């Protein structure tokens, strides 16, 4: 069990966040935003942190997750006997679309390395967006608005509850799940294989590691978690989806910043990164409306320069060979 001690601080942080949001009036929205960043950072970290591949198309998964939920709800809401089941149908569709795209991407893009991989992922993301808009599938550029469908299925009050609370609650669950998967991978053969891939892919192959297999496992896991986040944080919560809103590289960049701030390849890193990023973004938007990005950029640059291994990478070095070390990875 000692192997899983590092989960304690992560889950404790999530619990405290949840309690703050739940019991303190007016805090829920902010806490939900932070949970969103933590969950995405954690999910993205499983692939990028462990393999060192930078997936610039990560938002594709979040977007497809949103679409899966939108399609699930808007196609099945008239069947009353399904009840809350339509959310699960939406989730399953979300995961299905994301795994399709993950397998397609891993088939094409995982054969590439470095910048080529990043560019291929951007290409797939943009391609999908224009395909949906151009071919007019799934509502084309008009998107899918399914708040009406929600109300029809659950009534106004339950729908409000769903979008205002349960959607965010699900994000918390996904964040915790991502953390558990993260450490499980780190501690198993998969983690060793991925570390080898990150450090020297060719040497890894000669050592008997089926690099494609392990990269695909990480890519798929990371993509499915991203899709689940999208399904709830954007799908159920907003109850609409437009291609121009979801296939936006901006969100991928946010994931990268969150992970790098906290420390790539660490367990606690994406959580701390998500908190630091989310809080400063939120706070700056309040105190310096209009100027937030101008101030935000140099802050991020300074953090990255001072802590090149991320905040947790730095803390890890400082706590080496202290009793704290076994809680921090």
């Amino acid at each position, binding site marked *: 069990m000692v192997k899983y001690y590092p989960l304690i601080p992560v889950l404790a942080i999530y619990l405290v966040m949840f309690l703050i949001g739940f019991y303190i009036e007016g805090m829920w929205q902010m806490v939900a935003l932070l949970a969103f960043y933590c969950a995405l950072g954690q999910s993205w970290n499983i692939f990028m942190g462990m393999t060192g591949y930078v997936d610039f198309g990560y938002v594709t998964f979040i977007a497809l997750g949103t679409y899966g939920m939108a399609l699930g709800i808007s196609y099945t809401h008239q069947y009353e006997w399904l009840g809350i089941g339509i959310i699960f149908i939406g989730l399953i569709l979300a995961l299905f679309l994301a795994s399709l795209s993950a397998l397609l991407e891993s088939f094409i893009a995982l054969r590439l390395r470095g910048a080529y991989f990043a560019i291929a992922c951007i290409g797939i993301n943009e391609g999908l967006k224009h395909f949906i808009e151009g071919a007019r599938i799934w509502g084309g550029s008009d998107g899918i608005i399914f708040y009406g469908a929600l109300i029809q299925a659950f009534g106004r009050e339950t729908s409000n509850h769903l979008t205002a609370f349960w959607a965010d609650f699900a994000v918390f669950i996904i964040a915790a799940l991502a953390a558990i998967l993260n450490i499980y991978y780190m501690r198993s053969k998969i983690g060793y294989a991925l570390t080898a891939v990150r450090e020297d892919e060719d040497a890894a*192959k000669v050592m008997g590691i089926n690099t494609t297999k392990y990269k695909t496992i990480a890519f798929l896991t990371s993509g499915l978690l991203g899709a689940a986040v999208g399904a709830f944080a954007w799908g159920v919560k907003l109850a609409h989806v437009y291609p121009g809103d979801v296939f936006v590289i901006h969100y991928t960049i946010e994931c990268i910043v969150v992970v790098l701030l906290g420390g790539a390849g660490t367990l606690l890193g994406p959580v701390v990164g998500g908190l630091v990023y989310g809080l400063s973004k939120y706070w700056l938007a309040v105190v310096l409306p209009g100027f937030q990005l101008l101030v935000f950029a140099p802050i991020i640059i300074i953090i990255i320069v001072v802590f090149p291994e991320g905040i947790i990478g730095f803390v890890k070095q400082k706590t080496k060979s202290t009793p704290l070390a076994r809680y921090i990875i």
Partner: protein
Amino acid sequence: MALLKLENITKTFGGLMALNDVSLEIEHGELIAIVGPNGAGKTTLFNIISGVYRPDKGKIIFEERDITRMPAYKRAPLGFGRTFQIPRPFNSATVRENVAVGAMFGSLAGKVSVDDSLEIADRYIELVGLEAHKDKEAGSLTPVEKKMMEMARALAMKPKLLLMDEAMAGMHPKDIDEMVRFLKKIKEKENIAVVSMVEHVMRAVVGLAERVMVMHQGSKLVDAKTEEALTEPRVIEVYLGRPPDESK
């Protein structure tokens, strides 16, 4: 039954013939050195054996199994271990984790758990004398320590065939003697065939190898017992050139 059999291997890179019709047989537990000046095709041969490249022509048979087209990662579990000319440790992982990767994905793949692998790693780390550095990041080791770590990592794969790429280049003569002793001991204990590639550290060749294959410009020049091979006029010619009176 030969452990590894190379049959008429040819490999070209564009117009360059890196290997020209090279055949070689290696028995279980044999110590063989592949010797040749820079550009002789030694590294290409190693890469062909370990599966990094595929030969244009020829066959590779490992324990009577044709593995010519088998990718590198599938060969390792059959019993291949390899060290590199310039060590290639997984820098951010600790020495222990590095060696454990060998145990996990080598010929014991699927038979050992992560914890078992770490235990096996400890054993080999002790064997190569790196206990004190066990929990250090591999990237922080000295070059010689990195070589020893790679050796432990390759041995933890429990190979039947260990390919050592210039393992002793740049080492102090005293270290080389120690390494040679170490390899002989390991070979006795675990019946590993060791193929070591050597450019010019003759001390290692003489001390270690029972058999020497000399390569020159992609072809096999000589394949004989160590003493015979090293006194062979053609070998001396490759390394030192012809004596002046003959070249007139």
